[in-house]
């Protein structure tokens, strides 16, 4: 055997921890070092913008594994330590404080960092990425401020839903025409905007933030690019994230939007990447992608662990992701290009129980379910099989009459 015997994993969240566990479960017996920049033991992030923010879970329910399981991993766990550099030729990770961790196998799983907006240093302006962020945000929401959420992607939409659920006055702001436009396009985005409007959120799409109003160092409002001004005592900035790759700047490794890997998640021999930080070529869809989805962190970590130990298997999954907002459970498989066609495959949008397919380049690229988990799981196969578009066999006659044009509102109500 000539496999690695000194593996370092940088990043101790879902992708990093899962890689470490999978290496062990596949029989890796060498040295294993797991490095994380937070003090907390590894925890799960999806509940942060849902149960943790809403206060329905105690923080310890987000633990990714118990202390016993962590001990059984037989890893050197370095928490509260940041990687600040990588010496590729010398095969060493440089840590803050000057330590160097040697390796013959490396996994880059450093995730992403929230983007910030100019002027967002004021008191009362929050981001949400870490457990500490979520607990701080919850504490401040309990003071019942008027809330503005900037950015209506997954995170912003979920935060708005939770804050509204706490009975707060919430405005959801995005420069794009509807919420989640980038993720799911105009029609589903309109339906999500309607969902928020129905629950009493003021949806202000189509205008971005020009500046934050400053009252003695504390945010007091938001001025939008259309000139309007909103009162806000608390602002959540949820305008996306960028890969945490600053530490690789001088490494010589290829990185633009994330660490660039091949179809096997390998950057260069012996160095792999997994999770939110990894950009790789997914041959199922014939395109490069980087996913900030929980499920991908696990699947990619398993693939990386296997390939590090010689599996030589392409990582070509059908991505899965979900969001819970109010009473809507929205789940999706595949990819959702902006110029995709859309058709109803099950149920009725008017009933808020349906599955839609997204067609792109002549094939089913994605399926999205709205409160239809079982049907979606079955229709996922269309994406797995790269079924020609439109998928006539699965389109019931009645569903043709229920295309989004009929079933969905054409404008988002605005206040």
């Amino acid at each position, binding site marked *: 055997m000539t496999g690695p015997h000194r593996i370092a994993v940088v990043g101790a969240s879902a992708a990093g921890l899962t890689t470490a566990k999978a290496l062990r479960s596949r029989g890796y017996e060498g040295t294993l070092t797991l490095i994380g920049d937070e003090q907390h033991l590894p925890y799960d992030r999806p509940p942060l913008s849902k149960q943790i923010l809403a206060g329905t879970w105690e923080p310890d329910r987000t633990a990714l594994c118990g202390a016993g399981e962590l001990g059984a991993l037989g890893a050197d766990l370095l928490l509260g330590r940041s990687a600040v550099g990588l010496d590729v030729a010398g095969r060493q990770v440089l840590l803050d404080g000057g330590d160097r961790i040697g390796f013959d196998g490396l996994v880059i799983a450093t995730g992403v960092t929230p983007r910030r907006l100019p002027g967002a240093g004021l008191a009362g302006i929050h981001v949400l990425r870490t457990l500490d962020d979520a607990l701080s945000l919850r504490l401040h929401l309990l003071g019942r401020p008027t809330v503005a959420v900037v950015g209506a992607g997954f995170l912003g939409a979920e935060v708005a839903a939770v804050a509204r659920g706490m009975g707060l006055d919430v405005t959801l702001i995005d420069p794009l025409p509807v919420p989640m436009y980038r993720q799911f396009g105009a029609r589903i985005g309109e339906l999500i905007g309607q969902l928020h409007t129905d629950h009493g959120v003021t949806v202000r799409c189509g205008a971005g933030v020009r500046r934050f109003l400053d009252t003695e160092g504390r945010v007091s409002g938001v001025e939008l690019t259309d000139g309007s001004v909103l009162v806000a005592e608390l602002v959540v900035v949820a305008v996306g994230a960028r890969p945490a790759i600053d530490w690789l700047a001088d490494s010589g490794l290829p990185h633009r939007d994330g660490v660039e890997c091949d179809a096997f998640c390998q950057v260069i021999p012996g160095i792999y990447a997994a999770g939110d930080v990894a950009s790789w070529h997914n041959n199922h869809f014939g395109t490069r992608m980087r996913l900030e989805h929980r499920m991908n962190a696990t699947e990619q970590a398993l693939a990386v662990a296997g390939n590090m130990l010689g599996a030589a298997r392409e990582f070509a999954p059908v991505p899965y992701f*979900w969001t819970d907002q109010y009473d809507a*459970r929205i789940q999706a498989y595949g990819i959702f290009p902006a110029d995709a066609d859309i058709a109803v495959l099950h149920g009725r949008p008017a009933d808020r129980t349906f599955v839609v397919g997204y067609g792109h380049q002549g094939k089913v690229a994605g399926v999205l379910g709205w409160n239809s988990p079982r049907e979606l799981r079955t229709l996922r196969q269309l994406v797995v099989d790269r079924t020609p578009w439109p998928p006539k066999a699965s389109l019931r006659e009645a569903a043709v009459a229920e295309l989004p044009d009929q079933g969905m509102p054409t404008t988002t109500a605005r206040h």
Partner: protein
Amino acid sequence: MPVIVDQDKCIGSGQCVLAAAGVFDQRDEDGTVLLLDDSPPAESLDDVRRAAVLCPALAITVEES
């Protein structure tokens, strides 16, 4: 080797059914996990372990004995 599911954590992804259809199912109304067999046969254990690892909500525990 007992299998335990946490319906409160479950987000209805159905990954468990994709991995081990004989052991897991989903509730009709919201997709929440249903455990069909809490002591699955040995030949399905690899699938069940895979379901536990893949579950994006960490709602499945396999008690290794």
